[in-house]
């Protein structure tokens, strides 16, 4: 009887299910299937033609024993964590600072100009910074003004600057986004708390420290979780900004996977590495969620 009723309900919604069909089909073919195929391929020997051959976890041990991959892993972590830290701090200071502006026009201008780079492709942002950091670029021009008679530096060809450049350009691109998120949380704080604090004689800086920042904690947690999901997955920037001189310092996992799998047809190693990155992403975000008590908060 219950079964019959269920069928009846399903039948009633048949047109609605039909509306879902293309989306479900898309997800199965372009999301679930590639995931399964990738995991399956990570246990197979890479072959251009012919049947695949099962080789167990050889690809995985290959990844672990490959110094290029371990180097890429540390590059990814260093640049990723550095980028997140700078973006987060810069975004927070920016949000607090913008919130103090009373002039609406000024507020809009600074918000737009800090947010704009977030919307631009890495091809654009990477391209413009490569040119600014070139020997004839704007940075060398500015430094020449301050220190006369210095010789121009090719910043993009100096391994010692490479990671810093990646971190700072990422922060330039992304901090405005975090600032927008934080600013939205700042303006939703109950103003009467500030009024009460002002009556009690708290200075503005004290108000920021003891009212604004504690009230931003939930948004900060969201940002941390968003940041950790993307931590190991920075492809575009490195794809655009890498070059052979600084590769050792910045080449990251995703770029290496792309390079190995798509350009060198080394699918076994590449899919094994991708599966490892996937697992690592889950593990890292699980740990971070536990550490910041994300799921228990509000």
């Amino acid at each position, binding site marked *: 009887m219950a079964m019959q009723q269920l069928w009846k309900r399903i039948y009633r919604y048949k047109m609605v299910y039909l509306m*879902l069909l293309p*989306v479900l089909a898309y997800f199965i073919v372009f999301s679930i299937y590639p995931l399964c195929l990738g995991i399956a391929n990570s246990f197979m020997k890479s072959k251009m033609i012919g049947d695949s051959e099962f080789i167990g976890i050889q690809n995985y041990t290959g990844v672990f024993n490959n110094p290029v991959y371990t180097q890429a892993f540390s590059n990814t972590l260093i640049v990723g964590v550095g980028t997140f830290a700078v973006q987060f701090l810069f975004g927070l200071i920016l949000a607090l600072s913008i919130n103090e502006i009373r002039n609406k026009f000024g507020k809009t201008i600074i918000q*737009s100009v800090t947010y704009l780079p977030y919307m631009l492709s890495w091809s654009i942002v990477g391209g413009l910074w490569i040119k600014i950091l070139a020997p004839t670029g704007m940075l060398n021009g500015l430094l020449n*003004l301050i220190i006369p008679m210095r010789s121009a530096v090719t910043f993009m060809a100096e391994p010692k600057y490479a990671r810093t450049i990646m971190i700072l350009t990422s922060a330039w691109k992304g901090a405005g986004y975090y600032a927008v998120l934080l600013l939205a949380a700042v303006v939703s704080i109950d103003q009467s708390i500030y009024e009460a604090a002002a009556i009690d004689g708290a200075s503005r800086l004290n108000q920021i420290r003891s009212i604004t920042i504690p009230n931003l904690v939930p948004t900060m947690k969201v940002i941390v979780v968003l940041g950790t999901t993307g931590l190991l997955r920075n492809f575009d920037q490195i794809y*655009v900004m890498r070059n052979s001189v600084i590769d050792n310092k910045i080449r990251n996992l995703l770029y290496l996977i792309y390079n190995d799998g798509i350009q060198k047809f080394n699918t076994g190693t*590449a899919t094994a590495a991708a599966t490892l990155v996937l697992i690592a992403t889950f593990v890292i975000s699980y740990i971070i969620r536990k550490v910041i008590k994300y799921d228990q908060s509000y």
Partner: protein
Amino acid sequence: MRKKNHQFKNAMSRSQRIINYIFLILVFITMFLPLWNVFVMSTSTALDAGSSGIKLWWKSFSMEGYEFIFKNMKIATPLKNSIIVSVSGTMAQVLLASLAGYVLVQNDIPFKNAITSFIMLTMMIPGDLTLISIYQLNKQLGFLNSYIGLIINGLVSGFCILLMRNYFLSVPYSLAESARIDGSSEFKIFYKIYLPLSGPGLATITFLEFVSKWNSVMIPATITTDSNYFTLPLVLRNLVAADAALSGAPLARDNAIMAAIVITTIPLLLIYVFAQRFLLSGMTLGATKE
């Protein structure tokens, strides 16, 4: 009078305000000068753009960079490709995401929770990590080097579906119920009642998706090898690929590269000017916890 006094107490002291303004002016300079530099270089002669200096004002105004990029680099093709792919991809996304979002607001449709969980599961599968298999899949389907391949990868996102669901939830369910009693078909309820009442939601995902599709680098880099199907970001990347700059055999002079950057940026700027409101709200929506 009292109000003024009160406001004063609730603001920074004069010196703090000045420090704050100086900080923001510095931020403005850091954010704006690089973009301005691009524009000035793009409209300078190749000689001026390639010479050293700060290049924040024109020594000589010239459009030769744009001429070069259209005539010699044939940027019209990638420009056309980018427009085709981004516009049709965005339209498909909006349609499919709102259809799926509509399903998720039905009150007692069987398996609603299962469907919602499934969509959330797909959001957890990072597309960039299945890249190799996506390449193989597109190869099997014959989608390499084709518009359909560029459009169909990333066609629907769980994020947009859930965003549309949230907008649809604010449409009174009784409206749909009474239309149903009057004998309206589901599809009619969807496009006569739900879509018109969810304008801001539709605008939000339209703009967000257009921006993300216009900027997409990874999928085109993976599934195209034929330059007839390159999109703008890919061509731009090849132009600035740093190896060429180091070995001294660049494809194009600096002013032409900057012109390409400007051309790629303009649609995003337009979108930003028109849709700032929606974009900002969409961004914030995406970051709130379910």
